[in-house]
C-alpha cells in the first residue's frame, strides 16, 4: 500500500471505529475489562455487609476493632493483539478479506483502549514471529499499531499459532488482556493456548469467511491452498460434495467453539459477511453478564 492510501485507510478506520467506540460501544469496554490485578487502596473500619474474607487481621489485632483492607482495581490494562497474518487470511469472498476484517477489529478494540488509557501492544505472526510492538499508551501509539497492521506484508505464508503465543509468554510477565486474532487454521496450538490463558485474559477471535462454510454451485473448481500452494479440484456442482463441505465447515466451527469453552477462553466469532462491531458488542454484553 502506498503511504497516501494507507493514511486514508487509517483515517477511515479511525473515524469509523471512533464512531463505533463512542456510540455503540460507549462504556461497554470499560465495564468489561476491569483490571483483575488489585491495587491496595485503603484500610477502613469494618461495616456490616463487608466480606469477612477481606478483614485485615493484623490491623484488627493492633486496633482492637475490625478493619477491612480495600483494594482498587487496577484500571490500567495492557492490551496485546496477537494477529495471525498468514496467507490463509488473504481470502475473502465479499468486500474484505479475513485479514482486513481482523485489522479493522483490532483497530476498533485499540481505539476503545485509548478511552481507557490502556497500553496497547502488537504481535504479528505467521509461522514465525513477524513483528512485535511493545505495549505503550497514547493515541499516537494506537495509530501506529493500526498503521503497522495495515501496511504489514508478511514474509512467510504458513501458520504456527504457537510462535505468537510463546513469544508473548516470553516478552510479558504482567497480566494482560490478549486478543488472539486468527482463523485457527493450523494445528497443535491448544497446549500453548491453555498455558497462556492461565496467566492472561485470553480472548480468541476467530475470523472466517462464509465460503468456508458453504459452497456456491459453480461447477468444477481448481483450488489452491494459499499457505501451502497445494491444489485440489472440487466439484461444487455436486450436491453430495456441497453437503459434505457444509457439514465439515460447521463441524469445525463447533469444534473450535468447544475447544475455547473447555479452556475457559472467551471467543469472538468474526465473519467477513457480518458487521464485526455488532459481534464485539455482543461479546461485551456476554462478558458483562458473566462478570
Amino acid at each position, binding site marked *: 500500500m502506498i503511504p497516501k492510501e494507507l493514511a486514508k485507510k487509517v483515517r477511515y478506520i479511525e473515524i469509523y471505529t471512533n464512531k463505533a467506540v463512542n456510540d455503540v460501544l460507549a462504556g461497554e469496554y470499560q465495564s468489561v475489562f476491569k483490571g483483575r490485578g488489585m491495587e491496595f487502596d485503603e484500610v477502613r473500619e469494618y461495616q456490616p455487609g463487608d466480606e469477612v474474607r477481606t478483614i485485615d487481621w493484623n490491623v484488627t489485632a493492633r486496633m482492637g476493632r475490625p478493619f477491612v483492607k480495600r483494594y482498587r482495581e487496577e484500571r490500567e490494562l495492557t492490551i496485546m493483539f496477537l494477529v495471525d497474518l498468514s496467507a490463509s487470511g488473504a481470502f475473502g469472498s465479499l468486500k474484505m478479506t479475513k485479514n482486513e476484517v481482523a485489522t479493522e477489529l483490532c483497530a476498533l478494540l485499540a481505539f476503545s483502549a485509548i478511552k481507557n488509557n490502556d497500553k496497547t501492544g502488537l504481535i504479528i505472526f505467521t509461522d514465525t514471529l513477524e513483528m512485535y510492538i511493545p505495549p505503550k499508551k497514547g493515541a499516537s501509539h494506537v495509530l501506529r499499531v493500526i498503521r503497522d497492521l495495515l501496511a504489514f506484508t508478511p514474509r512467510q505464508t504458513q501458520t504456527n499459532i504457537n510462535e505468537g503465543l510463546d513469544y508473548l509468554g516470553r516478552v510479558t510477565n504482567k497480566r494482560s488482556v490478549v486478543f488472539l486474532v486468527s482463523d485457527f487454521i493450523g494445528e497443535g496450538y491448544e497446549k500453548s493456548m491453555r498455558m497462556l490463558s492461565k496467566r492472561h485474559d485470553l480472548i480468541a477471535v476467530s475470523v472466517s469467511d462464509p465460503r468456508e462454510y458453504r459452497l456456491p454451485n459453480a461447477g*468444477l473448481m481448481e483450488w*489452491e491452498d494459499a499457505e501451502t500452494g497445494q491444489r485440489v479440484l472440487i466439484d461444487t456442482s455436486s450436491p453430495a460434495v456441497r453437503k459434505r463441505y457444509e457439514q465439515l465447515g460447521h463441524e469445525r466451527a463447533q469444534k473450535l467453539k468447544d475447544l475455547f469453552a473447555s479452556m475457559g477462553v472467551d471467543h469472538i466469532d468474526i465473519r467477513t459477511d457480518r458487521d464485526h462491531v455488532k459481534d464485539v458488542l455482543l461479546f461485551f454484553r456476554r462478558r458483562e453478564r458473566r462478570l
Partner: protein
Amino acid sequence: MHFESPWAFLLLLAIPAVVYFHYRIRRPALRVSSLMHAVQAGVSLRQRFMAAPLMLRVLALIFLTIALARPQQGRERVHDVSKGVAIEMVVDRSGSMGAEMDFGRQEMNRLEVVKRVFDEFVTGNGKSLRGRPDDLIGLVAFARYPETLCPLTLGHGALPQFLKNVEVAQRKEEDGTAIGDAIGLAAARLKTAEEELARQSKDKPKEYQIKSKIMILLTDGQHNAGKRDPMEAAALAAEWGIKIYTIGVGGDESESFMQTPLGRIPMGIAAPLDERTLKAIASKTGGVYRRADDAASLRDVYAEIDQLEKTEIEAVRYLDYREWFAPFALAALLCLAVEIVLQSTVLRRFP
C-alpha cells in the same frame, strides 16, 4: 500395410512431455484459505473423468503421428516392364457376330463372348489365363472397314471401356468382312509402334522394347470386302515379322441377324467360316489356327496363345499405394473435438 516415413514415430517421444507439461503448467486456481475441507468433501462422478481430456489429447497425438508416418497399402502390383509382346487384337464385328453363342449356361451373342474372353485374356481370370500385364495391347475391329479402337498401350485399365464400344455392325452398308484390310491395318499399327519405340529407346536405352509382334485375328466369316486380299496382307505381315494367330468362331450353320426397331430379324445363313484361308494365314506367318465354338473352347484357345507367347516376369514391385492417413487424421480430429467439447462443457473448470 507399411509406413512411408517411419521417422515420424519419433514424435511419439513428445507424448511424455505433453503429459508432463499438462500436470506441471500452473493453471489458474482460486486461492482459498484452506483445502482441508475440500479434500475431505469427496469426489464426484465428473471428477473421475478429469483425466479423459488428457487421454483424448494423447490419443489424438498418437493418431496424428500415425497419419504423419504415412501408412500405405500396396494396391496394384506393377511389373517392371522393359520387354514385352505387342499384341494386336483384331475382332470381327460383322453382322454375323450377333449370333447366339454359349457363355457358361447363358446364351449371348458371339461378339459379347469374344469381348469378355478377351478381357480375361488381358487382365487374367485367375485360372487358365494369367493376364498379360507386360504386353502392349491394341484393338482393331472390322466389318466392311477396319478401324483402330485402341492403340497399342500398356495401360490396360482403359481396355474394358474401348471394348464396350465394339458393337455388331448394324447397317447394311458397313457390314461385311474385310479380313485383308484388317490384317493390313493391324500390321501397320504394330510396325509403327515398334518403330516409334525403337526411336525412343535410342535416347533412353531403358525404355520399353518389343520382343515380338503378334496379331490375334478373330472372325466368323469369309473375306468379302476391302481392297486387300487376306493372303497378300498376311505376306506383308510375315515380312514385318508379325505372327498371326487366327481363331474361327461359330459353326457353319451360323445365322446372321439384323437389329431393327421391330426386333432381330434373321438374315439367312451367312457365308460359312473360311477355315482354309485362316489356316493359310496362320501357317504363312508362323502362327496357329484354332477353332472355337463356345466360350470354353474360346478360352482354351486364348490359354494356348497365352502359353505360346509367354513372357518371363522380371521383377514385381509395388508402384501404386493407397494412402491410409485419412482415417487416422480423422480419428485425431475427432479426439481433439471431443476433448475440446468436454473441456468447455461438462468438464469445464473454474476459474
